[in-house]
């Protein structure tokens, strides 16, 4: 098992290399560059100043030199400084990563605690009114973009009940309750949008599992319906659901970017968005690097959880 994890971690390196290459290049393809923005802001117009700033920021070099310089530093843990704020990108990431992580984790908890029970219920009551309601709910959640729902939650409760979601961030370890009050709304929205697909998958898998021979064996032993689901069917049904959660990880991060913006959560999404507006290349690269590692790590965790769910994998 340890050798397996080691191998998987090694395999991350080339993947990350290519991912970073793509990020680095595509970033330079966004029209408008940082120097233009800086010059515009400071009312400096002369070509000489432009060259000076470019040289200072290392942007006068060819892109591939910039890239290798960046990746060389990145390996040592130095992701450069923000072009605007003059602080190390690593510091900015360290500050924002835990916040996004918390948001993602809360969203995942929401998603699973909505999707799995409803998915199982839907499968057990196939083609009843309850099943249709659950499936319609899932379709609606699939169709509604979370930014729209987010805006709705911002606007309507304040109009109707003079209630608005908390918009001030408090670190979790300072005051968990206030922190959760702020985080829970975006987490629920993100979780709900994630739960749609997960629920459908849970339903499909449970229907599939309930048709298996070993379920009939369990029934023939006198296992009741509740125990049948919990002990005999659920674990078998969840194996593919876990894969799906891994596949949804990038989606989760994408959703987080938008919801962090709406609910003013100072996570990586907000950091990324600001960096993109300002063409703050080192920050963008840094965020993408972390996101890339994050997605790969999530998928590694997904693989490892198979070991817990599926004894066949555990012993191989």
């Amino acid at each position, binding site marked *: 098992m340890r050798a397996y994890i080691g191998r998987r971690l090694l395999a991350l390196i080339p993947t990350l290399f290519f991912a970073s290459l793509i990020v680095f290049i595509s970033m330079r393809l966004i029209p408008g560059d940082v120097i233009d923005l800086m010059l515009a802001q400071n009312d400096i117009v002369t070509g000489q100043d432009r060259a000076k700033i470019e040289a200072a920021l290392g942007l006068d070099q060819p892109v591939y030199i910039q890239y290798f310089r960046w990746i060389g530093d990145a390996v040592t843990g130095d992701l450069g400084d923000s072009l605007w704020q003059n602080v190390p990108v690593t510091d900015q990431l360290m500050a924002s990563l835990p916040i996004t992580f918390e948001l993602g984790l809360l969203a995942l908890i929401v998603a699973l605690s909505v999707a799995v029970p409803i998915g199982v219920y839907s499968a057990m009551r196939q083609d009843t009114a309850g099943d249709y309601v659950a499936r319609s709910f899932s379709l609606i959640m699939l169709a509604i973009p979370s930014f729209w729902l987010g805006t709705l939650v911002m606007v309507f409760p304040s109009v109707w009940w003079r209630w608005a979601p908390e918009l001030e961030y408090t670190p979790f370890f300072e005051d968990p309750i206030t922190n959760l009050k702020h985080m829970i709304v975006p987490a629920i929205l993100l979780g709900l949008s994630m739960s749609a697909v997960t629920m459908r998958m849970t339903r499909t898998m449970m229907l599939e599992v309930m048709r298996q021979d070993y379920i009939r064996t369990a029934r023939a032993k006198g296992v009741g319906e509740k125990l049948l689901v919990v002990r005999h069917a659920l674990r078998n049904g969840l194996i593919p659901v876990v894969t799906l959660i891994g596949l949804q990880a990038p989606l989760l991060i994408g959703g987080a970017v938008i919801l962090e913006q709406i609910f003013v959560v100072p996570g990586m999404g907000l950091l990324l968005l600001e960096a993109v507006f300002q063409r703050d290349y080192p920050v963008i690269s840094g965020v993408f690097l972390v996101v890339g590692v994050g997605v790969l790590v999530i998928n590694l965790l997904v693989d490892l959880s198979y070991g817990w769910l599926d*004894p066949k994998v555990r012993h191989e």
Partner: protein
Amino acid sequence: MSSDTLLDIEHLSVSFRTDRGKVRAVSDLSLSLKRGETLAIVGESGSGKSVTALSILRLLGDNGVIDHGRVVFEGRNLLSLSTDEIRRIRGDRIAMIFQEPMSSLNPVLTIGKQVAEPICLHRDKNWDEAFEIAVELLTKVAIPDAKERLDDYPHHFSGGMRQRVMIAMALACEPRLIIADEPTTALDVTVQAQILALLNELTEQSQTALILITHDLGVVARYADRVAVMYGGRIVETADAKELYANPQHPYTVGLMASIPGIEGDAGARLITIDGQPPDLADLPSGCAFATRCQHAHDACRTSIPALDPVEQNPSHRSACFGYPL
């Protein structure tokens, strides 16, 4: 019903709702079984053997409907019990062994847990006590080092070993009836013989009645006390095993006998083969279902269904045939 009758199936009819409409899989089937007796049910694929077996424990899927009939077990009609009452009979008084050892065990639960489960469900025992009994059961079905294997998963076991586990599981609560639906069809020939011998030995030891569904007439000759031959969802002939071999009456049974090389000899996979196609249950002929393949068929056969009547005044030997000149 005499006092040593364990199971009495009376006029059982079962159908399935399908895309092609309602399909009758079992029609007006009656049979009875004494305590400790072994009854073999034989017949071609699709003749309704499994449906009959599953109906006893009400394990037909959602689309299966029991149209009428009674299944009286130890004096109670299983078909009119509540779901909770039938659940308490399953795995306790009546156990079942299925055909596919590869898919009939749960891949994510340990062998120990699966064997011990019925004991936990039906007896006032906790898991540890149930595990101890499971070790005894696994030893009984000749799983070596049973104690060490409790934590193994089904994929560690070969097909034959899994079927032994299924037998151990079936025996767990000392049931009065075991229904084994082609328990060896999926196994190697040599393993088949071992498993059947084991099943026979253990049921005999514990005086457990056995319904053995099989394609293999060699198996029937060796282990069964009684035989029921099914065709097109009905029993067409039933008799004591010896009587049936000595004096088969129904043309279908005669055909079955002729299609096997010899009753004695190794228990190879003698799949039943008779000229012609098995009947289409959705479109059964109006008379005797076998008429399309029967060389003795005459006009009466095509208009009405023959009753399962005693042969030569022998009430234990019955055949459903209008008769034909020999």
